[in-house]
């Protein structure tokens, strides 16, 4: 054994005699609680970042679409009102039906008030 090895062994022996210090019994539990909290916070932050990214991307797409339609005129959309000669008649029938339904509702309510079950 040379001089260096002798010294190393001697020091190693001395260091091995240094007193040990025990870790608090609740250390792992306490740390895991902090870790789980941190994981939940990380998850929430990731979810928020994901939502923010999707929202931003959607807004950007909507902005580009609006710009393309209203300013650049891409694609060209032409709106034509269909020719409907019988539209006034159908409107008259619709309004009449709504009126009759309304009257039916009011009369039934009045009847129930007068003849309760």
């Amino acid at each position: 054994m040379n001089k260096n090895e002798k010294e190393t062994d001697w020091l190693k022996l001395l260091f091995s005699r240094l007193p040990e210090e025990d870790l608090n019994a609740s250390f792992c539990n306490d740390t895991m609680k902090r870790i789980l909290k941190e994981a939940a916070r990380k998850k929430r932050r990731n979810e928020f970042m994901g939502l923010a990214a999707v929202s931003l991307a959607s807004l950007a797409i909507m902005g580009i679409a609006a710009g393309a339609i209203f300013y650049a005129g891409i694609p060209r959309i032409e709106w034509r009102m269909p020719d409907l000669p019988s539209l006034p008649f159908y409107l008259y029938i619709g309004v009449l039906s709504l009126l009759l339904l309304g009257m039916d509702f009011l009369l039934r309510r009045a009847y129930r008030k007068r003849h309760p079950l």
Partner: protein
Amino acid sequence: MELYSDTYYVKCVLAGDTTCFACLLDRYSRQVHLLIFRLVRNREDAEELTQDVFMKVFRSLSAFKGESSFSTWIYRIAYHTAISEMRKKKHEFLAIDEALIENAPEEMTAEMFGANDDSEQITRLETALSRLAPDEQAILLFFYTEEKSIEEIAHITGLSQSNVKVRLHRIRKKLFVMLTHPTKEQENE
């Protein structure tokens, strides 16, 4: 659970199973705590710093690429956390004359020191350690108590392997000088 490797648990945690971190914590908390305790010499501080180390490990787990062993990676984080904390507290460390270190007769010192009784040796070693700079203490502890190789110490401390060898040799000599030339306070005790 002990059968699984560290890398397996790291992958589990990264995949979202946070409870697997408990296995890594169980495996390394004692070692990391003991190292930090020997550096900071305060039970409460050591526990708080150990917890900080594991929080850092958890936060930067995705940065672990397996270039070194997981234990070396944890020790690297523990080393930097403890050193920066000790530097914040600005302890005063003993400056020793270079000539005294160079001329330290190591072999004779070991024999002389070996003649003292056990508890006195430990007390003197603890005092001498506390008078070394934090990074010097850490290098000694890695080498003698954690039994890390020069390569691992280099990886942990960020020094080159030759630098670690040179520093280890010098720190050892410095320690011998401190052990054989006790301070006035020690002599009074």
